[in-house]
């Protein structure tokens, strides 16, 4: 083990631990819908060697509020779960555990910026007009 002077679980916190589990379970549900809708739902209508996923196809799906909620819900959950997981890994190393504030602020900035970016890049599909 790394020579820990600081206990990882104490640094990471109980809320982070609880939300990591909650987001994990939600991600399994979201991912199942996401994969089914993107890769299986229209498989019967798929012919030949055309790409399975097209701008038009995704736009058509994202006309429905349900899929917008699923995709944005998944985006926020995956960012939390991924970056919080990364945070847990980082806190196993003293050089990061000693700089908890900096790591936390840094990951929040990355997470929120990516959330905004993710919201924006899905807009062309939702409005149905790319570019």
């Amino acid at each position, binding site marked *: 083990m*790394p020579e820990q002077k600081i206990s990882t679980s104490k640094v990471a916190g109980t809320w982070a631990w609880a939300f990591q*589990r909650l987001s994990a379970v939600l991600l399994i549900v979201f991912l199942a819908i996401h994969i089914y809708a993107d890769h299986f739902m229209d498989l019967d209508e798929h012919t030949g*060697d055309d*790409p399975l996923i097209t701008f038009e196809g995704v736009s058509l799906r994202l006309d429905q509020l349900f899929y917008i909620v699923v995709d944005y819900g998944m985006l926020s959950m*995956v960012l939390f779960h991924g970056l919080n997981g990364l945070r847990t890994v980082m806190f196993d190393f003293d050089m990061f555990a000693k700089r908890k504030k900096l790591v936390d602020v840094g990951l929040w900035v990355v997470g929120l910026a*990516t959330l905004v970016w993710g919201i924006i890049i899905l807009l062309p599909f939702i409005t149905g007009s*790319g570019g």
Partner: protein
Amino acid sequence: MKVRDFKWLFGKNSEFWPTNMKTGMWAWVGHRLTGLVLVAYVFLHLSFLSTASVGDDGASFNDLMATTSQPLFVAMDFLLVIVVIYHAMNGLRVVLFDLGLGIRRQKLVFWVCMAVAAVLIVGGLWAIWDLIFVSSGGA
């Protein structure tokens, strides 16, 4: 930072040295490695989607999808399927333990989760098979 600072990770007496690791430790190491891969993938995924904002009516996005529907990329998608399903099923096991379920039979629970993962992965391969081995790709 010196090399000996990493003896806990790479040394023969380290608990991460392959012969020193037991089932739970392999599961834990696998969970972390797949987790890191998936974080990187999320950013790759978003950057691919961002092409929809370039060009008319998603032309750039459609071009990219035509490229990524070629067998080589679909085969890489299958690697992603393996990574996701392992992470999800091992994660489910972690959640069960946190709820106080199955801790006394943790090895059994691990292998049941891995059996379910194997079934899902085979199902994934079955679904994706034609796109890798039959289709000539969307190009």
